[in-house]
């Protein structure tokens, strides 16, 4: 299907790559469908594009690239209300805030994005008991 992205233009993506976020994400409760797009070959960043709104997209990164000890099991636990099966593969990404220069990018390790790869359901979850914050320097 065709996806419009203000960042990346018009793209054709397989229908099955769309992930539904039943509750949107905090501040964006109406952003219900997202897909992950490549920004640039070889880049460690990707774009989580809302397919309902071309102007809404988030730079994301694999949290393991930020902190190799990132507790993916805790993310799965926090995502329990998504109804994922225990053996369902989970994709985890964290939102990156890219401020104007001279600001440096930061990653929200406190509230990762969790997506069930089989169910195609996702949410932003919170690692309540972790020491992480919404701005982790990259």
């Amino acid at each position, binding site marked *: 299907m065709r996806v419009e992205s203000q960042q990346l233009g018009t793209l054709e993506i397989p229908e099955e790559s769309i992930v539904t976020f039943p509750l949107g994400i905090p501040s964006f409760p109406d952003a219900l469908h997202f897909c992950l797009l490549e920004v640039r070959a070889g880049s460690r960043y990707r774009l989580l594009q809302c397919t309902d709104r071309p102007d809404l997209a988030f730079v994301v990164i694999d949290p393991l690239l930020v902190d190799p000890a990132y507790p993916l099991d805790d993310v799965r636990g926090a995502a329990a209300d998504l109804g994922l099966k225990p053996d369902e593969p989970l994709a985890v990404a964290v939102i990156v805030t890219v401020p104007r220069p001279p600001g440096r990018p930061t990653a929200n390790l*406190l509230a990762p994005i969790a997506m069930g790869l089989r169910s195609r359901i996702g949410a932003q979850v919170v690692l309540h008991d972790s020491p992480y914050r919404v701005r982790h320097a990259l």
Partner: protein
Amino acid sequence: MLTFARKVGQGVRIGDQIRITVKEIRGRQVRLVIEAPREVRIYREEIWDQIASENKLAAQVEPDRLNDLE
């Protein structure tokens, strides 16, 4: 919007499935127990605010900044 005064041990019900009970009061701190179905998200308010704010900031990435990222 409703305001209730509760003593330790007393609670508030929201809808059919959500219950908040005052478990303990120690000095200035109130300990609340919240019972809700699994799918209801529960946050400390300041955490929710932080996440909501940060999401709004993060959504403002400009196309040219995207290319600067390594």
